[in-house]
Each structure stands twice: as structure tokens, then as C-alpha cells.
């Protein structure tokens, strides 16, 4: 990075550190922070949408839809995310390629399953093997987003489902009495009132989601933890200009600080939303707000 970094073994103290912290590998670490934040920023709304759809489906009066919603919530919620990531991604990838294969290569004779191998025609590969590396990475990233969204969507669905039930009957009844249709009651009364009950659960889910990002490497996305582990492990002089012992401790401390800061930031935002939702409501929270004012 800096000119004086040419021979790190001659450097000491701050200069050494400045060179060390700006190696290409560290840049990858910093870049992975962006990756993780992007992933969170995309996953959260998508998962919420999945959750909302799941919860609405589970409440639906149309039997197959209700059944589907409930099965989704029950099954996906049942599987530990690690286990899910360990086989689901490959399965998802194969499923996509299988479908593409069926569409794109109708006259392909060879079987798709050859012994252990899963082989589709070149045109069906996702992404094409000739595609540049960034396409592969984006695809992996996209698959990761979908997988995360499916998993956390199930939990979000459960939270929203519970929150919808926590809205007092009388409030919905009144809407019905005024001739609001199911739909209107849902969107005008149930959904707005639900948030106040759902928010604690959703905040919690958000926190869990943030903390689940270290599993990203299982999905082939190199996340901060992957790099911290990689950088922190002891390095012998043969393979690096910056040999050091087991420094995982320090890297993990840095991660800890990163996660804590991010959590703090999230909390501030969520608290604001909560304060807005409880404003003027007949709950302990609303009451405390009033008394504090």
C-alpha cells in the first residue's frame, strides 16, 4: 500500500502496523464488511416480506394456502440454520440448474445424474462457467440472500402471526361492525396495530440475523469472520511478510466491537420506531413515556 512497505521485516511499530493493516488480504476483510452489510440490508426486507406472506397465508381462509403457510413456518423454523445451509444451498442450486436444463437443452440425451455426478448442459449452468468471477460471486450472494430470507422469513412469519393474534378482538370487531371488509380490516386495523406487538420479536430476529452472518461462509460468501479467522491464525515467515503468532483473539475482539457497534446502532433505530409506535398508547411503555415527558 505505502511505499515504505516494500520490506516489512525492516519496519516496526506504527509503520509496520500501517503496512500490515493495508495488505490485500486486509482489504478483503474490509470489503467483506461491506458485503455483510449489503447482505443484511437486502435480506431484512426480503425476509420480512416472506414472513408477512407466510403469516398472511397461515391466516388465510383458503385451505391449501393456509396449509402451505403453516407448513412453511413449521418446517423451516424446525431446522437449524447451519444444517439448512449445509445442504439446502446445493439443493437450491441444483434445482435451478435442473429447471434451466429442462428449458434450455430439451434435446440433451445424457442423464443428468451420472452416478454421484450432477451434470447439466453447459447452457444451463448457473451462472455460465465462462462468466466472469464477479458474476459467480453475485450469484452466490443472491443464493445466500434467498436462503437467509427463507429461513428468517419463517421466524418472521411466526412473530407476525403471534402479533396479529395479540391485537385485541374488540378492535377488529369494531372494524367489522363498521362494514370494513376482511381486507380493509386487515390492512387498516390489524396490520398497524400489530407492529407494536411484533416489533420486540422482530428486533430480536434482526439481532439474531446479524449474528447469523458468520454462517455466510457456509454459503460460499467470504464474510468477516472467515477473514478474521484467516488473518488471525498464526503465520509463519515462509508464506507471509508479516509473520505472527495466534492473533485470533485480537481479530475476534475487533469483530466483537464491530458487532457491538452495529447492534447499538440498530437498537437506537429500533427504539425510535418503538417510541413512535407506543406514543399515546395505553400500555406500560406509553405510560412511562408520558410520565417521563
Amino acid at each position: 500500500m505505502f511505499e515504505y512497505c516494500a520490506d516489512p521485516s525492516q519496519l516496526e511499530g506504527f509503520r509496520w502496523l500501517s503496512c500490515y493493516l493495508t495488505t490485500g488480504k486486509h482489504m478483503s476483510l474490509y470489503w467483506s464488511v461491506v458485503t455483510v452489510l449489503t447482505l443484511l440490508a437486502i435480506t431484512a426486507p426480503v425476509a420480512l416480506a416472506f414472513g408477512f406472506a407466510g403469516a398472511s397465508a397461515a391466516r388465510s381462509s383458503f385451505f391449501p394456502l393456509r396449509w402451505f403457510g403453516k407448513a412453511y413456518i413449521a418446517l423451516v423454523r424446525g431446522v437449524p440454520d447451519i444444517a439448512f445451509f449445509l445442504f439446502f444451498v446445493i439443493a437450491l442450486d441444483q434445482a435451478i440448474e435442473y429447471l434451466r436444463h429442462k428449458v434450455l437443452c430439451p434435446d440433451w440425451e445424457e442423464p443428468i445424474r451420472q452416478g454421484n455426478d450432477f451434470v447439466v448442459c453447459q447452457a444451463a449452468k448457473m451462472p455460465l462457467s465462462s462468466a466472469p468471477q464477479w458474476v459467480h460471486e453475485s450469484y452466490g450472494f443472491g443464493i445466500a440472500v434467498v436462503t437467509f430470507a427463507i429461513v428468517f422469513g419463517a421466524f418472521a412469519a411466526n412473530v407476525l402471526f403471534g402479533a396479529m393474534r395479540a391485537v385485541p378482538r374488540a378492535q377488529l370487531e369494531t372494524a367489522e361492525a363498521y362494514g370494513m371488509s376482511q381486507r380493509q380490516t386487515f390492512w387498516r386495523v390489524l396490520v398497524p396495530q400489530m407492529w407494536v406487538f411484533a416489533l420486540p420479536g422482530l428486533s430480536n430476529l434482526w439481532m439474531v440475523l446479524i449474528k447469523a452472518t458468520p454462517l455466510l461462509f457456509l454459503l460460499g460468501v467470504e464474510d468477516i469472520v472467515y477473514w478474521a479467522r484467516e488473518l488471525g491464525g498464526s503465520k509463519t515467515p515462509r508464506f507471509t511478510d508479516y509473520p505472527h503468532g495466534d492473533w485470533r483473539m485480537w481479530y475476534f475482539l475487533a469483530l466483537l466491537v464491530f458487532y457491538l457497534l452495529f447492534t447499538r446502532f440498530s437498537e437506537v433505530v429500533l427504539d425510535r420506531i418503538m417510541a413512535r409506535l407506543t406514543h399515546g398508547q395505553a400500555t406500560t411503555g406509553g405510560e412511562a413515556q408520558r410520565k417521563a415527558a
Partner: protein
Amino acid sequence: MSCWQTIQDYGLRSLGWGERLLPRDNFTLCDQFTLIGSGMIWNVYFGIFALVSGFFFATLVALGKASPNPWLRKPSEWFIFLFRGSPLFIQFFFGYFFFLTLKSHFAFFSPFTAAWLGALIVLFLNTAAYSGEIFYGALQSIPKGDVEAADAYGLSGWNRFRRVIWPTMLRLAWPAYTNEAIFLFHATTLVFFSGFPAWQQRGDALYYASYFADKTFNPFVPYPILAGYFILLTIIVISVFGLINARLNRHLPQAAKRKIRLRPNLIR
């Protein structure tokens, strides 16, 4: 070898009983089911003990966070923040490191570097923090009339809490808390995956599942088996929590109750 024989040999392998060596080739479905099932003993152990002990501590922490007294509030806030704010595997890492350091100074701490105690403590603190926050959130949404009536009747301290606030808090927190319980059981798979060492191949379900995946190079058998076990476990957790939920909500009007009963329990 019959499957029954396999069960006898490996059913309690995760605890160190039965065959010393794991199967090394010709893996049958029975092998996989038995060993992964045997590993579930650890997941259940970690889950139940952390959940039960964490529940009580979480209640205290939630009350602490809601308390006007800064000497109670600040530590509770920090505790929740620290454990909710960091990934579990970092907690495992530092927990293990911390116990290791303690152990080198005081022999008393030797058992703490073993997963059965060390990881349990980390999980306990972790779930206490998450549940504490959930309970705290519920405390904030208790209907004000209920609390006011309690105040007006001179219910105070422990009684006010135990008789009026606590039941309502639990009722409101329950769906989110159910989620947390499930998360906790899922988190137990991290113990050996990235945290504490496994001794003599005595590991949890994920340990054995990845053992098989590694040996057979086929993730589509052992992991779905693991998933199946966990779905089963989750369904049990959900039904137990659902029963408690039904009890917590038993005052809801008849109509609502009838609707609840029509819903199979597993979706809550």
C-alpha cells in the same frame, strides 16, 4: 449387523458408552440415524438446561432493565447488550479462552473447559440476554389498566410482579420467546461446530452428521436426517410452549379460544 445391534452399539455413543470406534465404511441409514440421534442427546441437554436456567435469569435481567434504579438498570442493559450484540461463536471463543485461562490458575475450573459445562454456561448467558430483552419488551406493552389496578390495591414488589405483571408479561412475550427457545436449540449445534473441542468423538448431532457427510461425500442424507430430528425436537418444543401459551391465554373469550383450538399446535 442388524439395526437393533447398531442401536445398542451406538445409541449412547455420544456419551461414551457402546462401541469405541465409529463406523468407518458401509454406512447404512441405520448407522446414520442412530449416531445422529445419539448426538441429539447433547443438543437436548444443552437446550433444556440453558433454557430453564436462562428463563429465570432473563426475568431478573428484564426487571433490572426496566428498573428505575441505575444500579440495577445499567448492569442489566450492558449484559443484554454484550450478549445480544455479539455472535454466539465469538462468545464461545472467548468463553473457552477465558475458562482455559482460569483453569491454568485455579484447578477448580478444570471442568469448565469441557463442553458440558463451559458451553452450557455460554449458552445460558446468551439465551438469558435474548430472552431478557424479549421480556423487557413485553413489560413495556402490558396494558396500563392492569398495572394501575394493582398499584391502586397496594400490590407491590414481589406480589405485584408475580400476580399481575409476570403472567401478562409472559403472555405477551410468549410467541417471541418460543422463537428464542427454538433458536437456542438450534444454537446448540454450534457448540462443537465452532467452539468447544469434542472428546473421543463424543459430539452432538451436527458433529455426527458432518462426520457422515465427510465420509460419504453426500450431504443429502445426513443433513436431512439431522433436519428431521430437529424438526421433531422443534415440534415438541412448540407443542410444550403451545400448551403453556394456551394456559396463559385461557382468559380469552370463548370464540377466540375455539379458533385457537382448531389450529394445529405446531404453527405457533
